[in-house]
């Protein structure tokens, strides 16, 4: 294996892993801020307990997002030094601004939020978590600005003497059509994930209480009593009410975010057809230009355009995805290949088709299933109904909460794998091939070492994080501490969320 392949593998593994945590952080930050706002406005302790419960989950997750994020920033220079030299004049500014504007804000105010409960006035403390939530969105904007340049370079000129791209219009970089289309799609997709975590944890507790109810009721019946005598434990009753609220907030947010994700994704598809037609063709494994173009839900056979055994096709849908009308022309891979070969010289300009074809479908598929899951949850819990504990719906309720957050989370991963793999063979579309961006001084052994160490550490962290996460969920709503005596000498800070 060579340095290039290993570096690509490492970047792929580290960024996909990093991006398991980022959407949870972005989504949860906003939802926790919303819950705390509800508490500050209503003074109801239920919202405070929910804020602390979800706040704890947010922090457990945020930590891994932070540590894996630093790796990403360092990797551009470590593994992709020629890329860094080539695009640094343009690419570096958004990264620096991400740190200056967003990361400083997120981490400083997060520290204030975690430990400032009894040190700051209520409203200022609330402002801290809002600043964190805003910071996460700002950081998404700047990193997407950098990424969008790689998808669709704008506002630059090529300095042939220095062999690099140089910035001539910063305004164009921050209004890149790809950026403007990706930003709403990405943020709403993040909120889908955050909301699904809120929903899932709430559902888990509702199921827990419902099962406990049923067990206690059948025990009463067995003891020849009447099930109607059953009185639920006060704490469980409070849990049930609080988590019903959380479930509703989570599901409704997920549905709104889901709808926005679909709408924004549709816009994004049209921009992509415009600026990266090869990626659109690769998404459909469309080899020959079609007018109108159909969209296949699923294909069995090879995706090289030669042997198609069986496929479900929706006529004219691809035309609609690409152009908002049912008659538009969508260019095929072969036609684009010929065109690019003339423009950029001989070479293979098609990305890995099976990867782009399936990730595109899976991204949309899991998104739709998650959305349907949200609708189902709202229906099943209508009018104060409790989750079923037996039969088919009992099984759905038992395993559904575990699966639910994975769907939009994987949707995010598939979307990014599609976007980045669909950009290949380019690192910066049309300007820099991926193979030319790698650091020339690295040996494969060095990259192999880092690949093994990072993958190993990430694997261990994943296990620890998931355990702590589920443990914190099952611990339930945290108890509220009494008001601390003001102005006492500082004891070691309690980890009070």
């Amino acid at each position: 294996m060579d340095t290039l392949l290993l570096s690509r593998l490492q970047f792929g593994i580290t960024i996909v892993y990093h991006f398991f945590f980022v959407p949870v952080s972005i989504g949860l930050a906003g939802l926790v801020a919303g819950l705390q706002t509800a508490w500050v406005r209503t003074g109801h302790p239920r919202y405070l307990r929910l804020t602390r419960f979800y706040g704890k989950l947010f922090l457990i997750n945020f930590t891994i997002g932070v540590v894996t994020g630093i790796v990403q920033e360092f990797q551009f220079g470590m593994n992709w030094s020629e890329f860094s030299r080539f695009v640094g004049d343009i690419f570096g500014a958004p990264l620096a601004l991400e740190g200056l504007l967003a990361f400083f804000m997120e981490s400083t105010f997060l520290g204030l939020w975690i430990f400032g409960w009894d040190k700051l006035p209520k409203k200022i403390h609330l402002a801290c978590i809002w600043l964190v939530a805003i910071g996460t969105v700002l950081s998404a904007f700047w990193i997407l600005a950098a990424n969008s340049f790689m998808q669709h370079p704008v506002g630059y000129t090529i300095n042939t003497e220095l062999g690099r791209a140089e910035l001539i219009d910063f305004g164009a970089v921050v209004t890149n059509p790809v950026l403007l289309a990706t930003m709403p799609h990405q943020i709403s997709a993040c909120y889908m994930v955050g909301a699904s975590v809120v929903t899932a944890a709430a559902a888990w507790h509702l199921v827990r209480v419902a099962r406990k109810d049923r067990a206690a009721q059948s025990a009463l019946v067995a003891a020849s009593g009447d099930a109607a005598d059953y009185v639920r434990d006060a704490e469980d009753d409070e849990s049930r009410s609080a988590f019903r609220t959380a479930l509703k907030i989570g599901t409704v947010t997920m549905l709104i975010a889901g709808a926005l994700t679909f709408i924004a994704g549709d816009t994004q598809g049209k921009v992509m057809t415009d600026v990266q037609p090869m990626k659109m063709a690769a998404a459909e494994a469309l080899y020959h230009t079609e007018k109108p173009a159909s969209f296949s839900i699923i294909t069995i056979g090879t995706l090289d355009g030669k042997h198609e055994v069986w496929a479900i096709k929706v006529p004219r849908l691809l035309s609609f995805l690409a152009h908002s009308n049912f008659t538009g022309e969508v260019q095929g891979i072969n036609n684009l290949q010929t065109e690019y070969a003339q423009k950029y010289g001989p070479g293979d300009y098609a990305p890995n088709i099976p990867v782009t074809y399936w990730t595109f479908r899976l991204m949309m598929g899991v998104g739709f299933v998650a959305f349907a899951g949200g609708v189902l949850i709202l229906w099943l819990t209508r009018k104060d109904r409790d989750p079923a504990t037996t039969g088919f719906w009992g099984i759905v309720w038992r395993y559904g909460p575990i699966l639910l957050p994975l769907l939009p989370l994987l949707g995010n991963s598939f979307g990014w794998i599609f976007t980045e793999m669909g950009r290949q063979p380019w690192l910066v579309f049309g300007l820099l091939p991926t193979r030319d961006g790698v650091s020339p001084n690295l040996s494969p052994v060095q990259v192999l070492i880092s690949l093994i160490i990072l993958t190993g550490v990430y694997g261990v962290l994943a296990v620890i994080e998931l355990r702590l996460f589920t443990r914190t969920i099952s611990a339930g709503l945290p108890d509220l501490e009494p008001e601390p005596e003001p102005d006492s000498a500082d004891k070691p800070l309690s980890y009070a969320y």
Partner: protein
Amino acid sequence: MDLATVWFVIEAVLWIGYFVLEGFDFGVGLSLPLIGRRDRERHAVLSTILPVWDGNEVWVIVAGGAMFAAFPGWYATIFSTFYLPLLAILFGLIIRAVGLEYREHREDAAWRRRWDWCIIAGSFLPALLWGVAFGNIVRGLPINAGHNFTGSLLDLLNPFALLAGLVTLTLFLTHGSVFLALRTTGELRLRAKRQASVAGAITVVLGVGFLVWLNRLPGIENRGAVLVCSIVTAAALVFGLGMHLANRDGWSFAGTAVTVGGVVITLFTALYPRLMPSTSNPAWSLTIQNSSATHYTLTIMTWSAAVLVPLVLAYQAWTYWTFRKRITLPPVDADAADAVRAKAQPSSVRSAIAK
């Protein structure tokens, strides 16, 4: 001053911010075994940095990002050259951060002990290796005409760079001990002061040796300025330690903070106008002229930094103000009473909520 020079200065400011702030975080992490002998003491020691360490760490992300933006060539060369040391630094930063954030989530003694070791190792690696990296940057490395490193890992582990690593390690430990003395009371403070005395004495010896060696490195263009910076830095360290002996905690911390900043200024002064000297051929050295971004990019960055850096400094200062009180370890009985109260608490809260 042209913008490239301005950005050289801003880059120095960002690294000063990082090393002054994370320097004491590393020092506090390294202090766990000696100053925090029991779990509750280690918790108290870590409490001094828990609300702020993450904000402090962002300085390195911004320093890296700004280097990428203002000196793309420098960023590319440095980060690819120090591939394995940076990997070790990243490894350290990862386990330290997770340790700091996860330690308190469980009461389990074994869980906490494991994270304590992660915090210690995760403070040790960056404290040592950032010094090694910067030592090499100032000393120079085999760099070819394409600005790529041509040496091996062994070239990075030369005596000068290793000494630089030991200097940052001991200096950060001193800085952290002095910080702990400023931020704690009672027995913890006394232990921190004892540690500051020992670490400080070692830092003086290593630091002065390093500065003397630094002044004799070939290729430095501003020898006079480097000498002045070295003397001021050494004087700040002596001042800080003197104030420490005089029990003036605030002044002593100011002294070590200026020392850390002084080291960065001295190193950057020794570099200027080079960014990464080439020992293969001086003509192949990276300089602020041949590695900087365009005037247009630097202008945008300058305006951004001029607005945002003071803002960040202001709100970070406010954070330190919010958490300004010294950490006091509660007496053991009170601790036990706390535990009893905590156990008794939930039911009363529950009943309050039920009502």
